[in-house]
């Protein structure tokens, strides 16, 4: 099924409507769009709900697992990937998906992020990248562009910006993509690709925080911000034919990097088998 045809009752099959709703997100937040894309991706792949584990850290985006009818682990700030690594190595037959934000994954969780990429462990990470700390009220994040206003950057942010895609590629992840909350069907396909990929997959998902980022920086409401995201996004394919000048102020979308590196749990298993074959020597 595709984005438009998955009926609402099918969506409800993956939600926990009784206890956890209404959700905590602001009206117009991109988090719900990503959640919808994730559900449709999982439905498309026909994954067994009992075998899916969704792990998250702390922040607006990290509240998502609470609403989802899988095995869900809502952990501590920045640590989702470390918890997820424990789950995956303990039971490699489980599908492990991590939901995280830019502050969660790249600031407090930066160390865990690069090492999960380096191990190339089979975890699909959806990083909802809204360039600000939403839950704590609008502080600057490692992804906040220079010059932008946040409550802890009242005169404009003077720190450099992290690029999670380059960070993941440099750290060894085998599937690195960037999507947006405007381009929903491609986002869904990237999530499907990430889950199917044996190895660490990052889907950096550009999203909107109109409540803080948009308001502080006069970028308008949710619709205006998502429209800006649309204008700034250039697919990898289109970018190949564009001059460098034309790419200023734009960001690339699509599957940016894919390799067939060996996966951590497979390597561990292979090592165990070698050790046992030698009689435990």
């Amino acid at each position, binding site marked *: 099924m595709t984005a438009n045809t998955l009926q609402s009752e099918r969506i409800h099959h993956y939600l926990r409507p009784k206890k956890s709703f209404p959700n905590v997100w602001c009206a117009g937040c991109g988090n719900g769009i990503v959640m919808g894309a994730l559900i449709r991706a999982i439905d498309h792949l026909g994954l067994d709900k009992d075998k899916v584990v969704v792990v998250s850290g702390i922040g607006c985006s990290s509240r998502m697992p*609470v609403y989802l009818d899988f095995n869900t682990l809502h*952990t501590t700030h920045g640590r989702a990937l470390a918890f997820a*690594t*424990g789950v995956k190595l303990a*039971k490699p037959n489980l599908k492990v998906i991590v939901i995280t934000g830019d502050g969660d994954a790249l600031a407090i969780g930066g160390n*865990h992020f690069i090492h999960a990429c380096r191990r190339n462990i089979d975890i699909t990470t959806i990083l909802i990248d809204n360039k600000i700390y939403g839950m704590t009220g609008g502080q600057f994040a490692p992804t906040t562009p220079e010059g932008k206003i946040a409550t802890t950057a009242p005169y404009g942010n003077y720190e450099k910006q992290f690029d999670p895609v380059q960070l993941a590629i440099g750290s060894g992840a085998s599937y690195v993509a960037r999507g947006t909350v405007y381009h929903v069907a491609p986002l869904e396909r990237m999530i499907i690709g990430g889950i199917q990929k044996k190895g660490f997959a990052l889907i950096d998902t550009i999203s909107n925080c109109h409540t803080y980022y948009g308001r502080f920086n006069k970028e308008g409401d949710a619709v205006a911000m998502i429209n800006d995201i649309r204008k700034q996004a250039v697919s990898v394919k289109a970018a190949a034919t564009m001059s460098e000048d034309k790419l200023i102020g734009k960001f690339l979308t699509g599957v940016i990097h894919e390799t067939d590196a060996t996966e951590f749990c497979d390597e561990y298993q292979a090592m165990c088998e070698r*050790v046992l074959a030698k009689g435990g020597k």
Partner: protein
Amino acid sequence: MNSKNSKARLLQGNEACMLGALYAGVEFFGGYPITPSTEIAEGMAREMPKRGGKFIQMEDEIASMASIIGASNAGCKSMTATSGPGFSLMQENLGYAYMTETPCVVINVQRGGPSTGLPTKVGQSDTMQARWGTHGDYTSITVAPSSVEGCFYETVRAFNLAERFLTPVIVLLDEVMAHMREMMVVPEEGEIEVFKRHRPDVPREWYRHFEITPSLVSPMASFGQGYRYNVSGLTHDQDGFPTAKPKEIVDKLNKLRRKIERYSDEIIKLRTEKMEDAHIAVFSYGIVARTAFQAVKMARERRIKVGAIQPLTIWPFPDEQLRDMLKNVRKVIVAELNMGQLVHEIRRVAPRHTEVIPLQRYDGNVMTPSEIFDKIREVVK
């Protein structure tokens, strides 16, 4: 040499902990190198692959603690081992394990502190951290052996307590215990009880992961088993969903405390020596208990009516047991390798007529029997 002695092995404390964990059926070890605990991780790296177990060296101790909680929720008996600085880093996720009632074992081989302190020297200055190390209200179980053999048995017991009460259990060692070597006979399989958490068998829709049952300890499902539940460090209701309702908050916090308090008789373990007629007692744990027992022997040879008390369970603190033991004791010497931690607990529980006398050493060395003996002679006057 008889057959029993032929099975005796010369082991160090860290090795005995590792063998104890394997005996208890550990399935997952996540750790980070730190002196003086590293031999435990090294042993696990060698042994786990041969036994179908999982070993991972994480990027730091925060991640180590996170990984074992993840693995435990996936159904594995899990553990880590560390020392002071690493134990500090683990406090964040230790709190998560208490809150989410996740069984796991954390071995802390104590060295001198604060900060990097004395990496290769002995200390007992994490005693209070083992009880109060992470933020918030919770109750900890902490055990502390005083011999190589004890390292083995207390590690097995730590796993049993963790699985029984669905909580982290801390094993407090110290640098000397971890590295000293003694002979011990590793018990045969089946010789001592090994407990594994109860799994639910109710229909899926009846299962509540954090149910407050009359026993306060409910069966625990694992990820992948078919019971899809939410685990959160946010204060949660019995289904695991975040709550801000005063009654649900109080019910949760009471459960964390009461499930330990109610079973404290089952958890608390003490060893005593010559306490029957003692007017003076020496209270100590870990390596100091070893020297204290020797000091008591020396004093008894001089007809001083002194006895020794050693808690093998430090937390929960054995309040009732000590009140009873100190009934006829005029003076209790509290000997520890820190600037005074358990002495405050003894002051809290000691009867009015019992004088509490601290004896502390914190120069990175073990308190000797003669130091304790001298103190006994001083207070007997």
